């Protein structure tokens, strides 16, 4: 590493990007889809009607449901429906044995009638959201691995910026149809264009899991009493134990108005009832997470669960906690309205494209060297197979997940698991297919199939859910229509990609030599 600072940073960028590139690509694509996780869930559970019902009505229904069905529970959780999440979700927890957490039960109710919704069993958009940081691994390994990947991404970003010093001059040079040069120009363009997004999303992902991955200062300050740290950072978690004397629970819905008075213009997100039916019952009303950019987990108004008296309003966050909360809020983007949410989605796609083009460049540059001999060394073939499976294979798996949602019978046992299984089975098959077929053919076939499957999602929706036209023409269900149209657009884009890939590349023999020489000095 004697070649100087920029060269060594280029080396670091190249190899850090390669080693974690495939994993990062999957994390970024599923994370991007997670910006629309409620909308995806809505499409995947079309039985849940989208109705606008006042919070008060929903809460009355939730309370009467829980009083009938959750006798003896130690805690109730009520998530009120909003514009993005149409279902009224209730959950309760029974007291566990000492030292154990009690079991949770969750039900989805119709917010207008309070009846249990018989919606198909699915993970919905939650699957992409969970996968993007848990990677379908047992706790806490997936979170550790994804945070390590985020650190590598941070290193690759900063070393990439150092390598690419002529950021603004190069930004305006895009040379299309120049093979390797175009890929590099594209990589630089999507990198620079949304650089603030890349930096924000990467650093905030480190901050979100920092108390798990970087706990030294917690241990140094709190010793073994780490619970005290979490109680100070998330003050809402303190609850009085049950008194053992039965008492009638207060009517919940008048508390909403009292809570909203504390937050001008704010919405209520979730209500928890501790020890319902006990003399020591308490009610926590939490603010909707999308009300502010800065996420405040302790934004809670607490009431006495028997008299309904207001007990406590959480104090405003300190500056340090507000900075922490703003990293969280910016990453999750819960505050974003439709337009900003689309911008988040596009930025996420740009980040995915940046990683993908980087992987293509790494391979293309090395393949050039072996173009004459026609023999591909094993490691290059391995990178090629992983590139294909991580890009076109992943898109194919996403499409399979949506198809499974409509094709698996509603009554199938462990149906939600089978949807997830079909995602991984198709992803695994794409890896196998990429290993068996030659590079370009594998790309074309996988992209073509993914294009076909995604572009026909609107047709699938119309055939399996016959009310589809009724859905958005009569009830104005634009979320479902939007999902169908987005899949169609994605399918057309992939079809274009497959068509581009299927045409032989024009390799002007005269220019090849000089171009290769130029590439080796320019590309790293």
């Amino acid at each position: 590493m004697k070649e100087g600072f920029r060269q060594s940073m280029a080396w670091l960028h190249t190899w850090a990007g390669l080693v974690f590139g495939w994993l990062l690509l999957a994390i970024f694509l599923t994370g991007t889809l997670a910006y629309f996780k409620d909308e995806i869930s809505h499409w995947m559970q079309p039985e849940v009607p989208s109705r606008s019902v006042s919070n008060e009505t929903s809460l009355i229904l939730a309370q009467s449901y829980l009083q009938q069905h959750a006798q003896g529970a130690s805690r109730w959780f009520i998530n009120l429906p909003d514009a993005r999440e149409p279902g009224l979700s209730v959950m309760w927890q029974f007291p566990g044995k000492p030292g154990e957490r009690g079991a949770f039960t969750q039900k989805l109710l119709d917010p207008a009638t309070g009846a249990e919704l018989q919606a198909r069993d699915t993970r919905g958009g939650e699957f992409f959201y969970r996968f993007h940081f848990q990677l379908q691994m047992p706790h806490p390994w997936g979170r550790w691995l994804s945070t390590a990947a985020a650190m590598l991404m941070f290193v690759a970003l900063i070393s990439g910026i150092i390598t690419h010093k002529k950021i603004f001059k190069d930004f305006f040079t895009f040379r299309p149809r120049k093979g390797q040069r175009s890929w590099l120009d594209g990589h630089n363009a999507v990198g620079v264009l949304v650089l603030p997004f890349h930096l924000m999303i990467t650093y905030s992902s480190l901050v979100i899991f920092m108390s798990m991955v970087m706990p030294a200062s917690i241990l140094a300050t709190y010793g073994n009493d780490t619970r005290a740290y979490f109680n100070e950072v998330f003050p809402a978690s303190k609850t009085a134990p049950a008194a053992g004397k039965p008492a009638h629970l207060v009517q919940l819905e008048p508390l909403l108005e009292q809570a909203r008075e504390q937050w001008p213009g704010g919405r209520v997100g979730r209500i928890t009832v501790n020890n319902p039916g006990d003399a020591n019952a308490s009610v926590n009303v939490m603010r909707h997470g999308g009300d502010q950019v800065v996420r405040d987990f302790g934004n809670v108004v607490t009431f006495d669960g028997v008299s309904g008296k207001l007990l406590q309003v959480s104090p405003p966050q300190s500056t340090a906690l507000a900075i922490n909360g703003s990293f969280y809020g910016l990453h999750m983007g819960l505050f974003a309205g439709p337009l900003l949410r689309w911008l988040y989605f596009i930025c996420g796609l740009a980040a995915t494209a940046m990683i993908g083009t980087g992987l293509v460049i790494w391979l293309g540059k090395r393949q050039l060297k072996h173009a004459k001999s026609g023999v591909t060394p094993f490691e290059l073939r391995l990178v090629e197979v992983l590139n294909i499976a991580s890009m076109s294979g992943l898109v194919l798996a996403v499409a399979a997940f949506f198809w499974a949602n409509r094709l698996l019978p509603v009554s199938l046992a462990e149906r939600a698991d089978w949807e997830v299984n079909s995602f991984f089975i198709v992803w695994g098959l794409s890896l196998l297919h990429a290993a068996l077929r030659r590079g370009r053919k594998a790309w074309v076939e996988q992209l073509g199939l993914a294009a076909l499957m995604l572009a026909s999602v609107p047709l699938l929706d119309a055939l399996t859910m016959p009310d589809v036209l009724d859905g958005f023409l009569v009830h104005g269900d634009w979320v479902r229509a939007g999902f169908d149209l987005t899949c169609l657009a994605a399918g057309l884009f992939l079809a274009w990609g497959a068509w581009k890939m299927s045409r032989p590349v024009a390799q002007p023999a005269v220019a090849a030599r000089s171009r290769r020489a130029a590439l080796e000095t320019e590309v790293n």
Partner: protein
Amino acid sequence: MKSKVATNPSSYRLAVTSRVLAAVFGGYLLAALSSVCMTLLLPMPRADAVVSGMMTSFLFYLVAVLWCFACRTAWQAWLGLLLPALGLAAISAWAHGMNLS
């Protein structure tokens, strides 16, 4: 560097491995110590100080990793991490003693 890949001797591979280990583990050590040091020195309520220390630690990690690959030799990479780490540990121990007294 990659131009050497075809003919790289095992000493080159060993040096790269050493740098990677320094970056991953040495860098983590430095970042963790930086968070402890900041937590103990910042004049804030303890929860705020802990959060501030943890939030900044990743910048230290980044600089440590860049250092490991920018310096001339693998030995320098280790030395450049362990000396500041010792310094941070000494400051933390001193600040811890001050907080107790």
